[in-house]
């Protein structure tokens, strides 16, 4: 074994865990420093210890509400992602359907989703389903668009190989186009993973009965800014977690993509 291989482990750990931790610690430090330097009251901007204290005050409540938001987020994300990919496959199979429905979908996507939140309550009710629908609405489009882009970007030389082997549409689709589209699909999934949390919180702000969004609403009403920040911190952690989960899945499923794109 050479030196290079023995220190590859620690170096990779430093690169993948050490540096991100350092970045977060630095950001927290600067935040704290600003509050001390300008003597900002915790009502306006709480310092990290205030937020920690708020969390320790109500840990069970916060975790429970985080669980509610996480459920809404992941269920909506899963439905939106599967739906987006499925519709993209449908479009790939039939140009007629694509031509007919794509303008409609693009128009729906152009509507600000936050404006739909009150309507969803009218249509579906003050319940979890309405919140999940909001998440689905936000996740669907990026996955649809990225999957379509991936499916149609198969290079000519691979198409030609399929043609010269007289591969059927399905064979070409399953063995070539789908795999080729995966890296692009993951781009869409990463975008959707962040939008999913945003969607869940928008829904919870409009219908503040449960979830971290409702914690933000009620804590600002009682002027408990540190508690609001504790909820926001949990949302941020959740978002980062979901994003890195998708990234890990990507590395597992498409290890070749990074190699050929560099």
């Amino acid at each position, binding site marked *: 074994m050479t030196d290079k291989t023995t220190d590859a482990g620690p170096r990779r750990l430093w690169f993948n865990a050490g540096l991100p931790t350092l970045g977060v610690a630095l950001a927290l430090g600067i935040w704290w420093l600003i509050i001390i330097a300008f003597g900002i009251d915790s009502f306006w901007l709480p310092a990290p210890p205030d937020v920690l204290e708020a969390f320790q005050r109500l840990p069970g409540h916060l975790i429970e509400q985080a669980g509610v938001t996480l459920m809404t987020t992941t269920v909506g994300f899963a439905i939106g992602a599967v739906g987006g990919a499925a519709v993209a496959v449908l479009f790939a199979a039939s140009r007629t359907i694509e031509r007919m429905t794509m303008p409609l979908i693009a128009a729906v996507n152009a509507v600000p989703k936050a404006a739909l939140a009150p309507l969803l309550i009218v249509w579906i009710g003050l319940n979890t389903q309405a919140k999940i629908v909001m998440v689905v609405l936000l996740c669907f489009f990026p996955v649809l668009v990225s999957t379509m882009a991936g499916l149609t970007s198969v*290079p000519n*030389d*691979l198409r*030609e*190989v*399929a*043609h*010269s*082997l*007289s*591969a059927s549409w399905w*064979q070409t689709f399953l*063995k*070539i186009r789908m*795999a080729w589209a*995966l890296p692009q699909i993951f781009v869409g999934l990463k975008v959707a993973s962040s939008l999913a949390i945003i969607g869940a919180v928008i829904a919870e702000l409009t219908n503040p009965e449960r979830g971290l969004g409702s914690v933000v609403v009620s804590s600002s009403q009682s002027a408990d800014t540190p508690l609001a920040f504790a909820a926001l911190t949990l949302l941020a952690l959740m978002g980062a977690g979901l994003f890195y989960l998708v990234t890990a899945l990507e590395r597992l499923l*498409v290890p*070749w*993509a990074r*190699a*050929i794109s560099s």
Partner: protein
Amino acid sequence: MIKIAGLSRTFRGKSGTVEALRDINLDVADGEFLAVIGRSGCGKSTLLRIIAGLIPPSQGEVLVAGDRVARPRRDVAMVFQRPALLPWRSVRENVMLPVEIFRWQRAKHRDHVQRLLEMTGLESFADRLPHELSGGMQQRVSLCRALIQRPKVLLMDEPFSALDALTREELAVELQRIHMELGTTVVFVTHSIQEAVLLADRVAVLSARPGRLRELVDIAIPRPRTFGHNAHMEEVAAASAELHQLLLGDHLPQVATAG
């Protein structure tokens, strides 16, 4: 094995029509190695694609083993200029692709894959992904993928042109060995006179656009042939000179006229 009769092909595009091939007549014997050379744009790839059944001719016809070609056939395999491997599949799985597409039984072809990989010196790379291989090795995989079909006819479109000079020579010598071993009929498009003289029984020289068969040159040098010093230097030099002459004597491609 291949009979090309009165073959013409015209492309109609937005910017007008291009006559790529005009009245090609040519027979390729069983087991023959035919090289096709000609200036860029004279229709070599078009000719190959018509023989492969990838595009139809405008006029005339191509017969392979007595049957008129209308679509790609399983006993005609194509190797393209670029390796065109699936980046997510290992070398072995790339070679297996035609077996899967043809719905042949994988188990029956495993040994064949193994033999082809050994023949091309790839056996220790069988489980690597394409991006882990050099360009020359990737093109060898592409050749194996064509040979797994046990083709009667192997069509190759400038298969070595994207490689460096030494790798080209190495692969050309290897292709000669494989051709001698398998006796497959080969149509090999190239820009390299050297490659043509090393590999071919006959060389078809196409004229500039529209591509017509300008000359068929016999290369009667015994095999195995080698690059560099060998017993047939004079014949090689004479054949190369003749091909040079034919290509140079060709009309220079018309400078694109306005419009």
